[in-house]
C-alpha cells in the first residue's frame, strides 16, 4: 500500500513538473493589430530630441498623445578622424541623427526641414512607420523647404530611420540615420543610464587616417570595402574625453543601432556580458549574451549591470574593424575595486615547456668547460638533458628507435664500431640505406645544424654511456675537427 502511494506521488510530481514546463512560452504583444489605442488624447506634445550619446527621458505617458517631431537636415563638414574631414549629411547636425522617443499608439506629426544651405533634397524612412516608404514618399524635401506627414506608431520597439533619396546608399553612407524608440505601453524598466550608440561604415577616396578633406568613394561602397567602421560617426566620438561614464553597481541600457549601409555588426563589450539583450530590438529578451548581431538597418537593446571598475571597450567583434577601422568605443566605470569578482594579475613567472626538461646540467657543463674542468659525468648529464626533446623525438628516450623507421642507438653496431663517425652523422645528417643490428633502414636524418660543438660532444658522450653502450667520450675538439674537414651539406650550419 505504501509503495502505491509513493509511486502515485512521484507520478503526480512529474506530471505537475511537466505542466509547469509547457505554460512558460512568453505572451505575444499582438503587433500592429493590438497597437492602436485610439485617437490621441490631451494637448499635443512637442517631442524632446537628443543628440547622441544621450537618450530622451521616458515619456511617462499612459495614454496615446499627438506628438510633434521637428527634425532638420543639415549637410556639415566635420572630422571623421583626427585631421581627416568629411562632409556628412545629417539629421539634426549629428551622426547618428537625433534620438526620437514616443510611446506605442502615439500619433506623430513629423516635420522634416531641409536647411537652405543643403545641396541635395532629402527625405526620411522610419522603420517604425506603417505606411508606404516608411514616410519617404511623403517627406521628399527640397533644400530650403519643409514637409509634413503624420503616422501612428502601431508597433513597440527600437527602430532605425534613414534617408531614402537616390542614391540611397550614398545618403546612408554619409551618415543619414538614427533611432526612434516606440516605448511599450507600460514603459521600459528603470535603469541608471541609457545611452545611444550607432554603428556605421564609411567610404573615403583616401586611405584610413589619410589627412585632409576626404570625399565619398562610390566604388568602395559598392564593393562593401569600408575605410572606417565607426560608432557615432567619428573615431573619437566615444573615446578619450568623450567616453561614456558610469559607476559600479549601476544598471546600464544601450540602444545600439546599425545604420550600415553595408556591414552587419557583431556587437560586444569587452569584459562585460549582456544580462539582457533584445535581439534585433524585438520585444522578448534573451539573457547572458556575449556578442549580439545587429543587422544593417537594425538595432538592439542591451542591458548589463556593472560590478568591477575599469575601461570597458565596445567593439564590432569582426575584430579588424575595431583595431584597423575605428569601431571602438569606451565606457569608463568608476568605483571601488572588487577583487572577489576580478582580481587583476596575480602572478607572472618564467615557464619552460615539459618537453625540454631541466637544463641545469647544460649550464653546469658550460661553466666547467669554460673553467677547463669538464668531467665525463658532467658531459653525460648535460648530454642527457639535451638528448631529450631533440634526439629522443626520433630515437626515443631509451634509444631504441622505431622499428623499420628510425635506427636504435642502444647497443647499435653501426654506432659502436666507429663512434667518431657519429660526429659526422650528427653534423651532416644521414640519408639513404643503413643496416643497424641486422635491420635495414632507409630514411633521412637531418643535419643537426642547431647544435654547437659542445652540445654535440655532450650528447654523443651521453649516448655512448647509456643503455648498455660501451662508453667513451667525445670532446668539443673532436667535433670541431670533423666540422672543419667535412663539406657542408646544403642547409647545414657552417
Amino acid at each position, binding site marked *: 500500500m505504501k509503495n502505491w502511494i509513493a509511486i502515485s506521488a512521484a507520478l503526480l510530481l512529474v506530471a505537475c513538473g511537466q505542466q509547469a514546463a509547457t505554460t512558460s512560452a512568453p505572451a505575444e504583444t499582438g503587433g500592429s493589430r493590438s497597437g492602436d489605442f485610439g485617437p490621441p488624447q490631451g494637448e499635443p506634445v512637442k517631442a524632446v530630441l537628443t543628440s547622441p550619446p544621450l537618450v530622451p527621458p521616458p515619456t511617462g505617458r499612459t495614454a496615446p498623445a499627438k506628438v510633434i517631431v521637428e527634425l532638420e537636415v543639415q549637410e556639415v563638414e566635420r572630422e571623421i578622424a583626427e585631421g581627416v574631414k568629411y562632409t556628412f549629411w545629417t539629421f539634426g547636425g549629428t551622426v547618428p541623427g537625433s534620438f526620437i522617443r514616443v510611446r506605442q499608439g502615439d500619433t506623430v506629426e513629423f516635420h522634416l526641414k531641409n536647411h537652405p*544651405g543643403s545641396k541635395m533634397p532629402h527625405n526620411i524612412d522610419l522603420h517604425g512607420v506603417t505606411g508606404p516608404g516608411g514616410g519617404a514618399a511623403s517627406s521628399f524635401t527640397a533644400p530650403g523647404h519643409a514637409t509634413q506627414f503624420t503616422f501612428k506608431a502601431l508597433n513597440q520597439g527600437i527602430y532605425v530611420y534613414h534617408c531614402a533619396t537616390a542614391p540611397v546608399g550614398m545618403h546612408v553612407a554619409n551618415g543619414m540615420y538614427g533611432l526612434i524608440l516606440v516605448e511599450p505601453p507600460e514603459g521600459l524598466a528603470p535603469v541608471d543610464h541609457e545611452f545611444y550608440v550607432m554603428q556605421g561604415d564609411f567610404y573615403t577616396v583616401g586611405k584610413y587616417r589619410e589627412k585632409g578633406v576626404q570625399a565619398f568613394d562610390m566604388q568602395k561602397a559598392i564593393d562593401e570595402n569600408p575605410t572606417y567602421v565607426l560608432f557615432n560617426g567619428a573615431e573619437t566620438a566615444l573615446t578619450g574625453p568623450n567616453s561614456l561614464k558610469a559607476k559600479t553597481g549601476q544598471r546600464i541600457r544601450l540602444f545600439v543601432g546599425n545604420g550600415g549601409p553595408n556591414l552587419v555588426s557583431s556587437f560586444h563589450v569587452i569584459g562585460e556580458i549582456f544580462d539582457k539583450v533584445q535581439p534585433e530590438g524585438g520585444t522578448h529578451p534573451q539573457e547572458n549574451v556575449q556578442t549580439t548581431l545587429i543587422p544593417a538597418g537594425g538595432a538592439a537593446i542591451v542591458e548589463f549591470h556593472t560590478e568591477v571598475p575599469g575601461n570597458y571597450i565596445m567593439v564590432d567583434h569582426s575584430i579588424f574593424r575595431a583595431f584597423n577601422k575605428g569601431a571602438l568605443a569606451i565606457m569608463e566605470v568608476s568605483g571601488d575595486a572588487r577583487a572577489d569578482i576580478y582580481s587583476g594579475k596575480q602572478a607572472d613567472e618564467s615557464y619552460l615547456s615539459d618537453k625540454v626538461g631541466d637544463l641545469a646540467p647544460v649550464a653546469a657543463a658550460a661553466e666547467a668547460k669554460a673553467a677547463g674542468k669538464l668531467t665525463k659525468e658532467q658531459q653525460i648529464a648535460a648530454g642527457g638533458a639535451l638528448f631529450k626533446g631533440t634526439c629522443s623525438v626520433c630515437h626515443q628516450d631509451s634509444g631504441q628507435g622505431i622499428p623499420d623507421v628510425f635506427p636504435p642507438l642502444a647497443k647499435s653496431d653501426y654506432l659502436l664500431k666507429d663512434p667518431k663517425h657519429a660526429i659526422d652523422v650528427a653534423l651532416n645528417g644521414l640519408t639513404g640505406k643503413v643496416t643497424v643490428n641486422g635491420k635495414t633502414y632507409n630514411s633521412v636524418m637531418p643535419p643537426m645544424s642547431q647544435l654547437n660543438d659542445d652540445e654535440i660532444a655532450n650528447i654523443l658522450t651521453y649516448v655512448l654511456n647509456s643503455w648498455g653502450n660501451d662508453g667513451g667520450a667525445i670532446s668539443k675538439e673532436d667535433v670541431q675537427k670533423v666540422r672543419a674537414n667535412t663539406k657542408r651539406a646544403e642547409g647545414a650550419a657552417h
Partner: protein
Amino acid sequence: MRHAAQVVCLVVAAACAHTAWAAQPAAPRAAIPGGTFATILPPAEKLKEATVRAFQMDRRTVSNADFARFVADRPEWRRDRVAPIFADAGYLRHWPNATTPGENLAAQPATQVSWFAAKAYCEARGARLPTWYEWEFVAAASATVPDARDDPQWRQAILEWYARPASATLPDSGSTAPNFYGVRDVHGVVWEWVLDLGSMMVSADNREQGDPDEKRFCGSGALTMEQKDNYAMLMRIATLSSMQANYTSGTMGFRCVTGPEPRP
C-alpha cells in the same frame, strides 16, 4: 511739346535697349549635334534610348549680371514685385537689393531663381530652357569624349562635388573648363533647370522602381530609372524632381538653348 518728345525718346531708347539685349546671347552658343543615346529616364517602358535633334546651347550658365539686365527690362520679375505663384520667398534673396546683385555676385551663376523666372528669361532672349534629354546629352561628355558616363573616374569626380557642402561663393559663370562640346559649368557648379520639369515623373520615394501603381500617371506608374549605378545623374534627377516650379535654391541655376521646338 518738348516734354512729350523727351518721353517718346525715352520710350524708344528703352525699346531699343530691350531689343538689343534680348537678341544678344551671352556668348556665341555651342553647336550640339543631334544623336541617340541611352538615357536614365526612359521615354517609354521598353525604350532605353532617347533622340535629341541638333541644337545650340549657351556656353556658360546665366550670371547674376545677366539676370539683373532682365530684371531691369522686366520689372515684374523684381523680387519685391514678383507674384508668389511664380517665385517663392527665397527668390533673389542673396542680392543686396531688388535690382542689382552687387559687384561680388555679378559674375557668379544666377541662383535663387525659380523655373518660371528662368523660363521667362530665356523666352525674353528668344530662346528656351533645355529639355532634360538635351541637358543629359551634353552632360554625358567629359573634356575629351562625348560620352564619359561609364568612366569611373569621371563619375567619382562628379560625386566629389556632391560631397562638398554648398558654399556661399560659387565659381564665376564660365570659369570652369569646357567639355567636349565647348560647354562650361555643366558639372561641379550648380544644378540647372530644365524645360520639362513637369515630366520628371519619378516617385518621391526614389526606391520605388517598377511602380505597380499603373493609375498614378494615367496609364503608367512612376518612371523606372535606368543606369542605377550612374549615381551622378541619378542625383540630378532626384534634385530636379524634388523642386516645384516656383521653388528657388542657392544651388539651382540655369542656361538657355535655341533649337527645334521640343515635344510637349
